[in-house]
């Protein structure tokens, strides 16, 4: 029995650790560093129908214990992802979660339909929460009605379970969560980035060329934990938690808050081996905490 095993819709995870979308490309770069088969799953970079160049640079800026990014969903487009990136990943024994983005419902549907048929794509992650693109993106993620409808439309065409990625930039995240659950979502992933800015004191201008960027990293962890806690208590579909995770106790805490698995984003830039390290130290930490099976952690804060 593998005590790190977690079963989720579409995903049989040998451990609950996966890199978060946008922080791991399509895996090729990190594959130079370690064996990707070690990972519980991989959330690959957002894919849109057409190739996108993204935003002008600078696209990233450091903030206290965090960073801003405004990549702007740069990606090679559906065709290349399906014919080149995903087939390349098939050499690894790891389920892929495809992050789907678009400007309109039709885009999401078209990408979802095709990408969900790739043999190693075991689930979709609907990105309705990217703060860095002009149309679509975040408005889908802040209006419960639109979010629910988009989920329904994508569910209708997807051959694999659909997870919806929630934005933290809302008054009540549980409202959106319930709406996408009602729309048929199989699971939720949260949080995406908080909208933030940094300025250059010399010029008075924003440092990020796009003006605003998405805040990620340890700085946002308290907000992410709170939202995972709130959301997991208000829906009955599983939650994959993320936002600032960088050490093993973060994993424990997100799961205690209600996550069934976790994703690691920004920390991959700080310690490029963070994912395999977390997987290696988890069993020892479970021993220290007197936890037999990792699933015992899930939502334990709700029970006490």
């Amino acid at each position, binding site marked *: 029995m593998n005590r790190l095993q977690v079963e989720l819709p579409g995903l049989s995870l040998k451990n609950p650790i996966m890199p978060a979308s946008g922080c791991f*490309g399509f895996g*090729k770069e990190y594959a130079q560093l370690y064996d990707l088969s070690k990972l519980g799953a991989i959330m690959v970079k957002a894919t849109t129908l057409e190739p996108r160049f993204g935003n002008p640079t600078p696209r990233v800026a450091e903030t206290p214990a965090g960073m801003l990014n405004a990549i702007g969903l740069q990606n090679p487009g559906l065709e290349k992802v399906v014919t080149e990136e995903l087939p390349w990943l098939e050499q690894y024994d790891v389920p892929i979660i495809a992050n789907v983005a678009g400007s309109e419902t039709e885009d999401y549907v078209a990408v979802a339909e095709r990408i969900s048929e790739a043999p190693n794509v075991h689930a979709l992650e609907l990105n309705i929460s990217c703060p860095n693109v002009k149309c679509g993106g975040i408005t889908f993620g802040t209006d419960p009605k639109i979010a629910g409808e988009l989920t329904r439309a994508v569910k209708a065409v997807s051959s694999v379970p659909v997870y919806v990625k929630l934005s933290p930039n809302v008054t009540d995240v549980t409202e959106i969560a319930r709406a996408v659950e009602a729309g048929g979502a199989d699971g939720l992933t949260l949080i995406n980035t908080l909208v933030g800015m940094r300025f250059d004191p010399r010029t008075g201008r924003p440092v990020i060329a796009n003006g605003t960027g998405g805040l990620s990293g340890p700085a946002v962890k308290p907000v992410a934990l709170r939202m995972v806690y709130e959301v997991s208590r208000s829906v009955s579909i599983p939650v994959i938690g993320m936002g600032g995770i960088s050490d093993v106790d973060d994993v424990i805490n997100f799961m205690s808050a209600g996550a069934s698995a976790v994703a690691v984003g920004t920390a991959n830039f700080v310690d490029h081996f963070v994912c395999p390290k977390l997987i290696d130290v988890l069993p020892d930490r479970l021993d220290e905490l007197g936890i037999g099976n990792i699933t015992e952690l899930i939502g334990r804060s709700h029970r006490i």
Partner: protein
Amino acid sequence: MILNERMKVAGQREIARNIFELVLEGELADEIREPGKFVHVRAGETMDPLLRRPISIADYDDGRITLIYRAEGDGTRVISEKERHGQADVLGPLGNGFPVEAGAPGTKALLVGGGIGVPPLYGLSKRLKEAGVEPVHVLGFQSDDVVFYEEEFSRLGETHIATVDGSRGTKGFVTDVMGALGHEFSVYYSCGPLPMLKAVADGMQGTEGYLSFEERMGCGIGACFACVCRTDTNDPGYVKVCSDGPVFKAGVVSI
């Protein structure tokens, strides 16, 4: 191979105002095959500052690398406090460096550096010299107090300094010096701020050249798309400074 190593600090000293020379020891040094690559250095151990800092490998040798950097912001200031016998968390070597073989033995190569773009040219110059190419250096700085490695470069070849305020060498920019050199170069290499790279490339049109670029980085290995630059060709229309560069053949990146 890319390693993530806690390298040993063999020494650190301030070689000009706020400019530090940091010598590190470790296995990573033996993975370096060409000058102009860089390393990604974690400043502290806590979450602030968070991101690694990209710094060029100024020189490398059996088991040692030398970094030369300006301590300016939050991260580099923390790095500058590292002391002998301490450690530095380093990822590298990263990226693609300068092609030494682009210079034909017996010919001259022009090396043009500006400010903190100067360091990687040092390792390059050494390798060119070893390969029988004669390096000629044109190094630009703001002012006298931030000039570094003039002697080290002079030992390798002809070296010209330009300072913006004229407090050392020629008053003005590297291009002011370049105009008056009167040598023939088979190749040129340059690293420094974008306007300088542009001016150098313009001045050297017709000669084969290699430029090293800077961009804000996230991952440093090609995964996050933070550091893209547009290219003049259309497919895919961009390069990543961290993994496709930082050195590109002149003409590849739109400037």
